[in-house]
């Protein structure tokens, strides 16, 4: 009996050491590129938010994390919000992010990216890297497991184990590890910008094509798999009595047939749809084509501030979101805003 107890204790200690080593090595082996690192930092920051503290949840792809600055909306309207987005975010990821987010937050409104993902027929094998950016930072949960299962069922090369234990995916990096892999602790970083990728003024002068958004009767076809996730998001929000807004950010690769397709979808579910690619909306934003676009489909922070100002006004007027700037419970937002302002000023100074 004494022997058995001793053996059990030894086994527990052995497994504990194994677990600790495994976690440490996982941290070492995961990539340290900017996209992957910031995905962790932004997801960690979401988990660090006080429970039920955001008014608006933004779910979308790179156009969202470059085009929406929740801290500017806080500054202008006292609205709290968070952008949960990674580059090329799959609709499946948006759906499970929504399910997961509702465990931590009770937003009044969910703003969903209604752009290319709806029409893409997401190839999970081809876009594995983007999926990893989205899935790896997630806490272990039922939603994460279901998302992994969906990904695995849609791909030919994806495995459950490699998503649950990222080291199994990245172990072959052993021959390219360098100092930063050992020093950088990916799980400890917290981004202060509420989901905005970064303060970025690197601009590209863009030009909309002459035929851009010319009205016609053609309606683009949705990808049925991706549409399924959109419908599930709509249903979930309706069940939880959360308002939904569909938004297409300003982008050159958009066209009128996709606008019509999205509009039809929005009308079917009686959801407001803001297409920032329409002439009237572009005019209302007042975007400067020299300074406000990072590239053809993404905004700089200057552009993002203009969209956020417009969208914030819409959200506040439409849903009567309370101004929380004087609420002491939201003191941290002022602190984060100050950090944002300081970093902003520093970035401007660097340009000059």
């Amino acid at each position: 009996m004494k022997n058995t107890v001793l053996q059990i204790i030894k086994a527990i200690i052995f497994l504990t050491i194994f677990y600790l080593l495994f976690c440490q090595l996982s941290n070492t082996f995961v990539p340290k590129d900017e996209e992957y690192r910031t995905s962790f930092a932004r997801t960690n920051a979401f988990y660090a938010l006080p429970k039920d503290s955001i008014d608006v949840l933004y779910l979308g792809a790179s156009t969202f994390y470059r085009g929406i600055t929740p801290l500017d909306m806080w500054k202008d309207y006292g609205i709290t919000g968070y952008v949960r987005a990674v580059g090329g975010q799959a609709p499946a990821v948006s759906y499970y992010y929504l399910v997961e987010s509702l465990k931590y937050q009770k937003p009044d409104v969910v703003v969903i990216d209604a752009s290319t993902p709806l029409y893409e027929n997401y190839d999970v094998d081809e876009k594995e890297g983007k999926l990893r950016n989205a899935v790896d930072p997630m806490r272990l949960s039922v939603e994460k497991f279901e998302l992994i299962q969906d990904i695995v069922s849609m791909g030919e090369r994806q495995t459950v184990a490699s998503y649950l234990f990222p080291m199994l995916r990245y172990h072959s990096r052993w021959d390219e590890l360098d100092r930063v892999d050992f020093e950088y602790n990916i799980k400890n970083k917290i981004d202060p910008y509420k989901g905005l990728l970064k303060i970025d003024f690197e601009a590209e002068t863009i030009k909309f094509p002459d035929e851009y958004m010319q009205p016609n009767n053609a309606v683009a076809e949705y990808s049925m798999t991706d549409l399924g996730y959109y419908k599930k998001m709509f249903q979930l929000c309706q069940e939880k009595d959360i308002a939904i807004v569909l938004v297409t950010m300003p982008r050159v690769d958009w066209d009128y047939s996709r606008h019509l397709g999205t509009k039809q979808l929005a009308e079917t579910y009686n959801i407001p749809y803001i297409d920032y690619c329409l002439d009237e909306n572009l005019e209302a934003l007042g975007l400067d084509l020299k300074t406000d676009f990072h590239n053809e489909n993404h905004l700089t922070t200057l552009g993002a501030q203009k969209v956020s100002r417009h969208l914030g006004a819409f959200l506040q007027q439409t849903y009567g979101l309370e101004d929380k700037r004087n609420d002491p419970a939201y003191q941290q937002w002022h602190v984060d805003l100050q950090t944002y302002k300081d970093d902003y000023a520093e970035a401007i100074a660097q340009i000059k």
Partner: protein
Amino acid sequence: MSFTSFEFFVFLLIFFAVYFLIPKKYQWIVTLLASYIFYVYASLPAALFLIFTTVSTFYTGVLMGKANEQYAKTLANGGDKLTREQKKLYKAENKDKKHQILTAALVANFGILAFLKYFNFFASSTNSLLDFLSIDTALPSLSLLLPLGISFYTFQSAGYVIDVYRGKVAPDKNIAKFALFVSYFPQIVQGPIGRYDELAGQLYAPHKFDYTRVKFGLQLALWGFFKKLVIADRAAIIVNTVFDNYLDYKGLTIFFTVLLYCFQIYCDFSGGIDVARGIAQVMGIELRKNFERPFFATSVADFWRRWHISLSEWTRDYIFYPLSLSHAFARLGRSSRKILGTYLGKLLPTFLAMLITFLVVGIWHGANWKYVAYGLYNGILIFMGILFEPFLSRVFTQDNAKINSFSWRFMKILGTLFLICIGRYFSRADDLMTALRMLKRTFSIFNPWVLSEGVFSQLGLNEKNLELLLVSILVLLVVDILQEKGYSLREKIAEQNIVFRWALYFTAIFAVLIFGVYGIDYVATDFIYMGF
């Protein structure tokens, strides 16, 4: 589910937990269920063939058992009234009856194996012949299911019925237990081919949780994973590159690749066997050894005593001996002695039996002429070894050199390795003609500069991976040398202090996890012997 898959780890964890938590008398039932879950997970239709083999060989045993009982009963109840001649006749009748039952079972089971595995080979070979003879007809090529491990479980079951026929074992009376003997999951995929008298009793018996045994079993499995994932699957990248594009290479590039393939297939196969034996050991079941450090063989015959031992011994016991000792071969021996003289005449039946045995060994590996060549090549080499060994020993050990000297032994090891390497051209190349072409390209040029020009780091592995591969092979050789010298490494490790032991365990586990070739970058190849 492959041994290297995550699903298998989960399956194994659940299985071990249930196996050791339930009352011991039900362990065999859980193992049977797990074996069928494991098998059905791979293919449900294939399970039907497994069930057919199980049922047919089980009832073959039962029928032969009944025939024996009837025979014994008749002798007991009135045997004293029978004359000696009548008893002899009755015994012969009983033997004939059992022989018929045995033949039916063997024909049915080997017939299925032959049809599923070899029909298309037979059809394409026949069509080539018909084409050559300008006969305008052709056998169709069929899309046939090849059940997982069919060669292994068919040979194992056939061994059982032959043993029952010979009276070596009593027929099993419980079909569920027998089903476990046929389907036992750690070994069904790639062996070792079990013997009923060694395995069945262990499978049916209850087993306590033994800490040391479980620890040793896991260590063995871990070593198997190291061999498979770190060495075999890494070597496979170079081997596949060269074999898939052999026209781009010649000379020593091909030869060293084939040498690497020898290590690959050894680590792949023996790694899989170590995993199987390790898992079985955790359960308290000792599977037979399938390898005894084949790279230290001093002759081709010695190699086959160390390589895939369970198949070599199966063919020895159920093909070679029965053939050699048959009346027909005895007659052949008598006739050949008259013509060829005593020495050669005595060897001729042995040679023929060996040739047939190795033909079976070759064909067992697959339906292709290259395997026929592989089998015959080995059979002929062994016979030549027997024929010339005394002469060679005399020639090469003059000047009072001892026959057991290190240099003589080392030369024999190198010579054997060279001969085995040549055989591997046949077993690895896509077909017989490719193997011959590759051999021609190998010996068409002597280009030792490939070793210094970094040719091998351009075959799919970068330099770091190549260095890792060489270091891993070195580790393998050191372990094999120590084992060859009689060291039990697991026992030696167990004698060390806990800090050292645990450091070693963690190093080994993480070496496999980190340096193993698996996942998306490198697709871990299935165990090579799963296909046989």
